[in-house]
């Protein structure tokens, strides 16, 4: 099922008929929805933690993490018509792609570079998600390139008269790339049905925000393009959801693009290749860890009476089981045959 199918190239980019049933709008997070959001966060967190472990054990070659970004990602994802709206994500968007329905097995096949990895067939590094069944486009390593492409997805949607909104994500550091600027010019000029989510964790690997740009808020940059700029506490699911919902609704209604900054925390090193002790003090790291959005959301839901200790335990159990299953599945999967390296390079 996860085996990649490269046949029928002519239909690759046709989206109209797929999973029409999956289009579900969430006008406000219902209690059920909030619990589901929580569960996605837990699932993402457990998978993420396991990947760090797998890397330390030498079982996978690389991991780049979304830990500390999950509240914002879940808030945004649940504001989308999942499966219908487009997501052009970046490498930290684990919780987001899980929320949109990418299976853990699929994700871990990528981490192991195993056969059936739907993201790229073992060609890309881990966490370079791509999953067409959920309308997820291919993560690139060169940062920022997804932005003009997301503008193009949105422009085509507008030209075709479709009603999909395109959501794209980017780190604050990558907003310094020229592609960010050029894309937002298009977004402003054509009032594109687009939401650009900037996940601001205040670091580009080791480079702190103040050496990247001289604005207080990334959302300030919206002023250069005649689009909306909104900055929210991305450690808070409610704030993230509300801001994303408004932005997506406006985009769908023809009111154009929002630059949505979600202020998050990068609780881990940049990636498994990084040693953040070279540029963050233990005190700073402790401060960042203390911002963890997961216990915060759990506490909120418990106080709202939506989560009980039993539910929490059950959700943990399910998440662990899912991770265990996916890990078994991916680790036992064969490597791709070398034919997978050979191509096809060109579509038919």
């Amino acid at each position: 099922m996860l085996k990649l199918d490269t046949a029928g190239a002519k239909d690759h980019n046709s989206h109209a008929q797929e999973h029409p049933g999956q289009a579900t709008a969430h006008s406000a997070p219902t209690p059920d929805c909030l619990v589901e959001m929580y569960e996605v966060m837990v699932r993402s967190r457990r998978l993420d933690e396991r990947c760090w472990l797998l890397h330390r054990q030498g079982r996978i070659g690389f991991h780049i993490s979304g830990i500390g970004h999950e509240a914002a990602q879940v808030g945004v994802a649940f504001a989308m018509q999942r499966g219908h709206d487009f997501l052009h994500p970046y490498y930290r968007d684990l919780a987001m792609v899980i929320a949109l329905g990418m299976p853990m097995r699929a994700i871990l096949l990528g981490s192991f570079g195993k056969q059936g990895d739907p993201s790229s067939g073992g060609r890309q590094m881990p966490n370079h998600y791509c999953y067409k069944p959920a309308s997820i486009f291919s993560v690139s390593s060169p940062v920022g390139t997804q932005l003009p492409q997301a503008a193009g997805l949105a422009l085509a949607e507008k030209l075709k008269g479709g009603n999909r909104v395109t959501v794209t994500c980017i780190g604050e550091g990558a907003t310094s790339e020229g592609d960010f600027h050029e894309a937002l010019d298009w977004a402003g000029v054509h009032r594109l049905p687009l939401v650009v989510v900037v996940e601001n964790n205040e670091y580009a690997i080791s480079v702190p925000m103040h050496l990247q740009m001289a604005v207080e808020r990334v959302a300030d940059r919206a002023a250069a393009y005649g689009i909306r700029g909104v900055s929210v506490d991305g450690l808070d699911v409610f704030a993230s959801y509300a801001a994303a919902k408004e932005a997506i609704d406006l985009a769908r209604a023809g009111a154009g693009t929002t630059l949505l900054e979600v202020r998050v925390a990068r609780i881990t090193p940049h990636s498994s290749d990084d040693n953040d002790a070279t540029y963050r003090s233990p005190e700073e790291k402790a401060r960042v860890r203390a911002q963890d959005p997961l216990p915060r959301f759990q506490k909120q839901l418990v106080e709202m009476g939506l989560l009980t200790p039993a539910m929490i335990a059950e959700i943990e159990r399910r998440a662990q089981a899912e991770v265990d299953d996916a890990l078994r599945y991916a680790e036992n999967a064969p490597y791709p045959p070398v034919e997978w390296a050979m191509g096809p390079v060109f579509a038919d």
Partner: protein
Amino acid sequence: MSEKTLVEGIREALDEELARDPNVFITGTDIGPRGGVFLATQGLYAKYGPRRIIDSPLAESSIIGVGIGAAMNGMRPVCEIQFADFIHPAYNQIVNEAARMFYRSGGQYCVPLVIRCPYGGGVGGGLYHSQSVEATFAHVPGLKVVIPSNPRDAKGLLKSAIRDNNPVLFLEPKKGYRAIKGEVPEGEYTEPLGVAKVTRAGDDITVYAYGMMHFYCVQAADQVAEEGISVELVDLRTLNPLDKATVLQSFKKTGKALIVYEDNRFVGFGAEIAALLCEEAFEHMDAPIMRLAGPDVPAVPYSRPLQDWFMPDVQRIVEAMRKLAAY
């Protein structure tokens, strides 16, 4: 059939494909009411309107990036880069993105995108309106590179490029836009990508060329024919994927090869042809493989005598043909 210029062939292809497929649209700078700085899109804005002929901001990386996105959402964008010299800001989107998308997504998304781009010198364009970029891009797996040398091919190849499911860099010899004329069949026909064409059969030497240089080679071959030199001329037409079979076949017949290109010589496209021949047809080599190419200075200078010094021309091709034939 009627006699048309190369740019008219291109315009017809665009017009017909716009009419044929509602998913085709054009973007780039000045391609709207202005009709393009070379008038390749003249009249199309009036005919198809601002939703199909979209003047873009002056930002090449996004012209291509937006094209990639639109292509992944079911469209067939034709993106114009005003001069090949200005494709450089879009290098990242073309090479890292467009060319790799199909492979990197394991076939989930393809990028049916055409990048039209006038290239080449001899037009008084100086350093930045004269560049040839085909070697740079032919080196990139996943990107097709096509160069027409006459109006008929221009139309037929461009139509194929627009219908292709891959990114195609379509390089147009700007000096030939009006200088090269020829018969263009009315209405629907296509020329296949990836197929070179023996445009003149001959026995003594094989000359490989494309674009404007092919046009000059035809004249040079005529000239040396009077001296009894029989030239087989191969118009490469598609540089990637290269039609190796046709390239090798001609060489096996003549045993002598001259490659003519106006791009800088060093690591230019001619190097690949030479390497291919001496790797796969060594036993047929009767002479050194010759390259006649642009010199290795940054680009074509503006001042007339300096430009003339840079550009390969009919006379220099004639001399190279003579030299090779005499070896």
